């Protein structure tokens, strides 16, 4: 796949400390790709820094969550005729060196999820959060009939069919932007593969999920999967092009 048809989408909410560095690194690894920063209602100067860094910036009027930011990116990609969208987090946790693998993987799949769980990974989670992630992985792998070891990963790529779907339906609920979106994709018979990626520790800011929230993961995530599973074959309604 040629990199010129690739949109690197970076949802950002108050990430002024890391956004410039992330854009720089992405450009170094993907000089031909266009970078779109979706400023999700930041109250700091994230948008200005992203613009100064040479990215295209789309600013949401208020914070709508990663799901809303990503749907905006998919709508943008659809209307501008991009062949692929790769989501990269603005906090610097994702290594742009992995972008090639996620983009190339789209030759065989509609969605490629970067998994943080593999032999050489430094990434580790424990406690209730781990149990929840294992359960989510099992449920989605079963739905997908193919392993998805890290369904909560936000480092992933999407091809034309996925862009078409996600421009219409991309959940903004808790876990919806990661697990829920995959469940919707699988229900719509998109092909979901995975590739190993490197995970860095956060550069700035605080992890979005503390221990209490982690414990709540299980119930809410299960509910999300059940709800999506019950939805039946979802056919996007309405023409938004």
């Amino acid at each position, binding site marked *: 796949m040629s990199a010129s048809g690739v949109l690197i989408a970076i949802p950002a909410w108050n990430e002024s400390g890391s956004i410039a560095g992330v854009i720089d690194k992405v450009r170094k690894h993907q000089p031909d790709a266009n970078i779109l920063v*979706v400023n999700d209602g930041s109250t700091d100067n994230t948008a200005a820094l992203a613009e100064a860094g040479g990215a*295209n*910036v*789309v*600013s*949401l*009027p*208020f914070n*709508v969550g990663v799901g*809303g930011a990503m*749907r*905006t990116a998919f*709508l*943008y990609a659809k*209307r501008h005729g991009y062949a692929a969208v790769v989501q990269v987090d603005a906090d610097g946790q994702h290594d742009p060196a992995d972008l090639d693998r996620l983009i190339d993987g789209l030759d065989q799949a509609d969605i490629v999820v970067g998994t943080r769980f593999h032999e050489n990974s430094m990434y580790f989670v424990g406690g209730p959060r781990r149990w929840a992630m294992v359960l989510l992985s099992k449920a989605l792998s079963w739905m997908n009939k193919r392993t998805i070891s890290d369904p909560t990963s936000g480092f992933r790529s999407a091809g034309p069919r996925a862009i078409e779907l996600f421009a219409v339906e991309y959940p*903004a609920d808790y876990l919806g932007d990661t697990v829920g979106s995959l469940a919707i994709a699988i229900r719509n018979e998109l092909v979901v593969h995975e590739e190993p990626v490197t995970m860095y520790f956060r550069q700035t800011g605080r992890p979005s999920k503390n221990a209490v929230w982690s414990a709540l993961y299980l119930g809410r995530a299960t509910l999300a999967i059940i709800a999506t599973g019950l939805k039946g074959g979802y056919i996007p309604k309405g023409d938004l092009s």
Partner: protein
Amino acid sequence: MTAQILGAVAAIITFVFVFSLLRRGVLREKYAVLWLFFSAATLFFALVPSALVWISRTIGVAEPVNLLFFVTVVLLILVAVQLSYELSRHEARIRRLAEEVALAQRQIQELRDADGSD
């Protein structure tokens, strides 16, 4: 007797309040109708308690007041669920609007840049 008066007064106050909201255009008809109906029904049973007694006997509820509470709770739950539904729908619509506004703003900026007037 006191309970009757209390019920009637509450129903009248609710009716007048909802009606004034409706008149000022603050409340939409589809919600107002429901509350007006509720207050009208409450007023009716406050003024004609024998009606409640008769209905209770007919469907086999020993204590008329229990029937009143039961029906009230069920109706209020239905209203709450309906409001949650409306709220979810509006949140989804507002989110879609926010996304479209963001993209439209971007497009305006791109057109301006291409035009060189900005």
